[in-house]
């Protein structure tokens, strides 16, 4: 019927407009979806994108929340973007995020109620190691046996979720918790609490780290030879080998780097906003971060803005949930559309459609 032909000149303007275009289209199609769910689409869209930032009633709470929700998204997306550039597809950041939280929290809670300033940094380090170790499984299998990292990392998310349930109901369950699932609240354990750094906002160290990491990754990717090696591998494994790099080492590095960042996001979350290990600890940041990475064009600065936009849909989505009774799943569909439209737009930026007729 028709076929796709690569465009000779890809317009850089169009390429930059992609994210904006997809946000716009998501609003329209999302609005239609909301209409059929029986909600006023204009009110809903306004409540997602406008009210959290501008409404007097909500903004004092919402604006810091955007950064708090954005921080794990940005941290994870930064790590993923490096791998994506190298054609290494870690889809299991959600699992690495969970394992980071479990590792860090287990370490801290094992020392409870001992107080020491060493505990907090050590806990963060162990959280990072937890995420890193979890990503080493697909990394090892990929490098050693050419096992597809997409499948392994994704399946390990479900394993991690089972371990999370095990921890919440078993080895990390709060002994003073009257039998309810969930660990002790780390916010009530001074040495391990990821406390707010700006009073009354809830903004914690993770938010600061996410901003620092944006700068760090920008320098890594655009100013450092390692960033170049990753880009080279992603573009041509053969040229990478010719250059003298060991593709396996780079693949291993990309996977463990993204796992480490997901682990960092996890430990920051569990010791901060979440407070405890519990069955419902993970809310999909690891998956949403994939959208953030692409929406940000795998560019650290882009990822920062994409993380903020995506956090807005979370915060605004919560508002619509309790103000307009919009189901939580509707917001997830909304976020999914964003990636869908972005990828479709990209397709048309890079290809044109030719109808095949019989001449």
């Amino acid at each position, binding site marked *: 019927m028709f076929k796709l032909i690569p465009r000779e000149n890809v317009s850089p303007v169009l390429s930059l407009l992609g994210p904006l275009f997809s946000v716009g289209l998501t609003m329209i199609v999302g609005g239609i979806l909301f209409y059929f769910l029986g909600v006023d689409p204009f009110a809903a869209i306004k409540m997602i994108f406008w009210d959290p930032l501008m409404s007097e009633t909500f903004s004092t709470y919402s604006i810091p929340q955007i950064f708090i929700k954005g921080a794990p998204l940005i941290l994870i997306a930064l790590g993923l973007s490096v791998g994506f550039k190298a054609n290494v597809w870690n889809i299991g950041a959600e699992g690495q995020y969970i394992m980071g939280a479990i590792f860090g929290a287990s370490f801290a809670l094992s020392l409870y109620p001992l107080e020491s300033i060493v505990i907090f940094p050590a806990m963060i380090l162990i959280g990072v190691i937890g995420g890193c170790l979890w990503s080493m499984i697909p990394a090892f299998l990929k490098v050693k046996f050419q096992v597809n990292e997409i499948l392994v990392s994704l399946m390990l998310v479900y394993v991690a979720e089972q371990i999370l349930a095990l921890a919440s109901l078993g080895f990390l369950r709060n002994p003073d918790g009257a039998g309810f699932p969930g660990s002790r609240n780390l916010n009530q354990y001074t040495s391990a609490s990821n406390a707010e750094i700006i009073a009354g906002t809830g903004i914690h160290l993770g938010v600061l780290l996410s901003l620092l990491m944006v700068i760090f990754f920008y320098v890594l990717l655009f*100013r*450092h*030879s*390692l960033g*170049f090696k990753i*880009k*080279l591998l992603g*573009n*041509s494994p*053969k*040229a990478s*080998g*010719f*250059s*003298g*790099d*060991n593709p396996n080492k780079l693949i291993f590095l990309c996977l463990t780097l993204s796992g480490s960042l997901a682990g960092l996001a996890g430990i920051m979350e569990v010791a901060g906003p979440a407070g405890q290990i519990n069955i419902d600890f993970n809310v999909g940041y690891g998956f949403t971060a994939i959208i953030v990475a692409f929406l940000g064009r795998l560019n650290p600065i882009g990822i920062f803005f994409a993380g903020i936009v995506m956090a807005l849909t979370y915060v605004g989505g919560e508002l619509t949930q309790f103000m307009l009774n919009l189901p939580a799943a509707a917001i997830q569909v909304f976020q999914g559309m964003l990636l869908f439209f972005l990828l479709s737009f990209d397709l048309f930026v890079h290809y044109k459609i030719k109808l095949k007729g019989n001449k």
Partner: protein
Amino acid sequence: MNNKIENTLFQCRAINKEFGNVRANNDISINVRSSQIHALLGENGAGKSTLVKIIYGLLQPDSGSMTFLNEEYSPKSPKDARALGVGMVFQHFSLFEPLTAFENILVGLDKELGEKELHASVIMLSESYGLEVNLSSFIGDLSAGERQRVEIIRALIQKPKLLIMDEPTSVLTPFECESLFKTLKKLASEGTSILYISHKLKEIADLCDTASVLRKGAIVGEYDPKKMTPRELGEIMVGQSLFEPKRPVAANKSNKVLSVKINEVKPDTQFGVTLKNIDLAVFQSEILGIGGVAGNGQEELMQVLTGEKKDRNVSIKYMDNDIEMLNPRERREIGLAFAPEERLGHAAVGNLNLLENSLITDPNKRFQMKMGFIDFSELNEYTNEIVEKFNVKTTGVSALASSLSGGNLQKFVVGREIGQKPSLFIVNQPTWGVDALSAANIRQAIVDIANTGAAIILISQDLDEILEISNKVAFLTNGNLSIPTNTMDIKTDEIGAIMGGISD
């Protein structure tokens, strides 16, 4: 003059064909007389292929007309063309490997023909034109020359009056070339005209009666190749005067730069070639040419030399150091440089700009500052220098490598390596698909660094190139390397014997 017109078999008038903004054929008119071998000469991209595809019915012209046997001729498909008496043998064969030679001829027929009847006529053709083929062999087991003979038989069985041959010698050994020429001459003498496409000047002088030269999509003129030197013909083809690089003056025999010994190296894939019994050495200021038909181990040898493939069965000594276990970067750090055959996706990357492409081969971390940060000012300077020195036509160093033409990208790749001032430069197919002028410049650049003391290993399927600038030559056949001999001492018929020796 009257005689000439009467003799005309095929004629095209003012053929035009555009692809997008590119005019592939611009007002092309040619006249092919009967019983003649008519050359269509031009560089890559001059429009030869477009024109013959129009003649064979694969493409339709935008405007213009053709006559064949004094009648209006406008084939809508190759089938039409064949029915009217035009046959074609493509550069890339279209044979089914799991079928036998005979079955391939059978399935290619437009008309139903009894198997016995066909068998008889195939035998007759193959005997009377020296087209030796074992009809019951599977195509997969045949050499390139034999496959080509199958294609030719398949075309001849339709009794064409005009046979189009597209770059037929590009896959043949010199010996196979000669037998092909005999066949073509006999065909012509018996009344079949041949439209012979090539950019190889010497063979056109040997074979053809007339040559139409194409440049940038237009006809430059019609010449008698027998009355011109290949060089004159070449200058008409490129539209510029050409110079011939001279081989390096003298090798410094006391300074051995590299010696390689390979007992046996198995390929990584089932389609690869096993390298065996390779023993070579190259000295300072010397060019060692390694010839051979494609697919006889060039790629595999190159990988062993660059370090992309490391193998315990290989011994490589570079200035008294064993380097067989070093990776490409480590080899570059001690003075080697490489330019592999595949420009895009191996030597260079299309999606990266020229600056980034300079970074791919960066010996001694020249473009790095402390802690691995990239030194962009140094990188910029170096890349601009290459672009300028090697006359690389580009919009700038931030242009993507894919935006460069093949010839310009090759100049960039060779320039990038030579600019590192290597002590040993190993290059595979440096001028493949490159226009004649750029090719001469690239060869000259290689000779120049040899003259300043570098040792060179030049792997090439272009025999003329090897004979022109190498001090010593050796040939790869089925993964075996012949013993290197002085270029001056070797005779052309010997080369044919060496190259054809093991495969035939």
